[in-house]
């Protein structure tokens, strides 16, 4: 039986899931990337989260920036390096090498660097170490052979002391790092990348190598904002979440009645599909309004209307969302998925969910999101998004524009707990709407097709006067 590799969580949302637990314990990890890709931030987060969340002291060795400057840069993320130092959870050292000051006159080594590291590690009993960025040694020390042999010694030294270390290095042309640092680090290599895609700044992270463990190998988008680094997607959580018996109102008493008298299961996924103009958004707005009326937060992703348009249009259907917004219970996020590409968009959506912590989410329409993802990952990422919401017991209503091919062009209906279909019925004289429930897992739901009207007082559902059609066959 081989001993499992022990791992140390970075505390970075998403990265720990994707590495199945974090960085290799007691070993060096190389984080490489071009300028401004977030290396220093990732490394600093690893230290700060270790200190704050787990009480593990850390050592920050900066070769590039004065610690004060670095502290100012990360202060915007709520990291208070001076306070951590005062509390004995962080030790710092700024190693500055001015090449123009230096003359060589015979044999030397970098023993003083080791002495400094050793001293700083012992000062706080550091368990985590960051060396940012190691390339500065190559620029500062004239004798490259000395730097290389000492680097090898340095990595052994860190391993001997079982220090979990993040070493950052500059990206090279056609190689992972400019100075071939990857030769010295065999355990874990993470590559960060920052590009502009369709005018949108896109950051990506890839675990290039992770010896002795399985890990996600794709490129994962990540975000840097006021809360720090978030890597997405979160690894699929699967079906381990606990199904709730609690229900929440759809906002429509008649629809609740069709759903066993109670509404949607809390934390379930509801697909609401229908052609253009069938009233999907109105049902979404009812649900949002009902959520807020209970004093809970609702996050409404609106990809086709701006928040003000949504409020205005829904007002005409008798739903006033403005008070919900004013109370801070309803957050409407409007942006076009095509601008950012699917992954980045999903990243931003997950981020919004994490930050706003709603109990309900409306995605209007889900199909627009999926359509923007030209590549094969779109489906699995859509799954991850729904999984994420489910695992956090967030009730999610996905509005989907139905085309001739079926639900959305992407078979998401199978992952939905409840599927409600809307149809426009055209007769010679008028247009009327129909609603029926195709499925509702765990609910003795109505199979009847209801007539749906959008009135000034909201949506009204009623029995069809003549025929009582059975929706079950109508898929």
């Amino acid at each position, binding site marked *: 039986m081989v001993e499992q590799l022990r791992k140390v969580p970075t505390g970075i949302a998403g990265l720990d899931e994707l590495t199945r637990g974090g960085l290799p314990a007691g070993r060096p990890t190389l984080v490489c990337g071009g300028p401004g890709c977030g290396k220093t931030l990732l490394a600093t987060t690893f230290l700060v989260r270790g200190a704050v969340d787990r009480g593990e002291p850390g050592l920050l060795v900066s070769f590039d920036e004065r610690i004060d400057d670095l502290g100012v840069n990360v202060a915007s993320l709520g990291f208070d390096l001076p306070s951590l130092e005062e509390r004995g959870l962080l030790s710092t050292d700024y190693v500055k*090498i001015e090449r123009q000051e230096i003359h060589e006159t015979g044999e030397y080594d970098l023993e003083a660097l080791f002495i400094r590291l050793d001293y700083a590690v012992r000062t706080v009993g550091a368990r985590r170490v960051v060396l940012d960025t190691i390339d500065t040694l190559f620029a500062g020390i004239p004798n490259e052979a000395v730097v290389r042999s000492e680097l090898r010694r340095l990595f052994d030294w860190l391993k001997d002391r079982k220090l979990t270390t993040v070493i950052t290095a500059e990206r090279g042309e056609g190689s992972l790092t400019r100075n071939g640092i990857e030769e010295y680090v065999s355990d874990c290599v993470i590559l960060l990348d920052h590009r502009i895609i369709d005018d949108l700044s896109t950051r990506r992270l890839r675990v290039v190598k992770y010896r002795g463990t399985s890990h996600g190998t794709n490129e994962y988008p990540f975000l840097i904002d006021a809360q720090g680094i978030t890597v997405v997607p979160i690894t699929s959580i699967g079906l381990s979440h606990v199904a709730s018996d609690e229900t929440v109102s759809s906002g429509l008493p008649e629809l609740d009645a069709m759903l066993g008298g109670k509404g949607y299961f809390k934390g379930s996924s509801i697909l609401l599909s229908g052609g253009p103009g069938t009233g999907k958004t109105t049902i979404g707005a009812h649900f949002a309004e009902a959520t807020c009326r209970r004093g809970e937060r609702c996050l409404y992703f609106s990809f086709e209307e701006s928040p003000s348009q949504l409020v205005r249009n829904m007002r005409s259907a008798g739903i006033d969302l403005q008070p919900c917004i004013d109370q801070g219970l309803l957050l409407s996020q409007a942006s076009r998925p095509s601008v950012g590409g699917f992954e980045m968009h999903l990243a931003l959506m997950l981020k919004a969910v994490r930050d706003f912590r709603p109990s309900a989410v409306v995605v209007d329409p889900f199909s627009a999101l999926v359509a923007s993802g030209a590549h094969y990952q779109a489906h699995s990422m859509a799954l991850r998004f729904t999984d994420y919401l489910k695992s956090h017991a967030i009730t999610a209503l996905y509005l989907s524009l139905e085309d001739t091919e079926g639900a959305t062009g992407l078979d998401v209906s199978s992952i939905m707990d409840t599927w409600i279909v809307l149809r426009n019925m055209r007769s010679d004289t008028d247009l009327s709407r129909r609603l029926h429930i195709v499925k509702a897992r765990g609910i003795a739901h109505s199979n009847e097709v209801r007539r749906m009207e959008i009135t000034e007082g909201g949506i009204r559902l009623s029995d069809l006067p003549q025929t009582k059609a059975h929706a079950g066959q109508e898929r």
Partner: protein
Amino acid sequence: MPSEPEHWDLRLYVAGHTDKSLRAINNLKRICKEHLNGKYTIEVIDLIEKPQLAAGDQIVALPTLVRRLPEPIKKILGDLSNQERVLVGLDVRPQA
């Protein structure tokens, strides 16, 4: 040719009593005696004993000789076995 400095303030950083350390110390003493006409002070710092002093002068390599005065600060790395290069580094000899 600039006027000769009043004083050389030199600090030699070593780690322990290794051959390399001793070689550097002896080389430095000899060079100063022969070339600096008594206008110098030498302070030897053993970082094994005082590791906390390494950061102050930004010492990374050992041995390192720091010329604190005259300014600007210079750092001469190595065991100081190449006398000509030491003298150039100290600005006792003009750069060839």
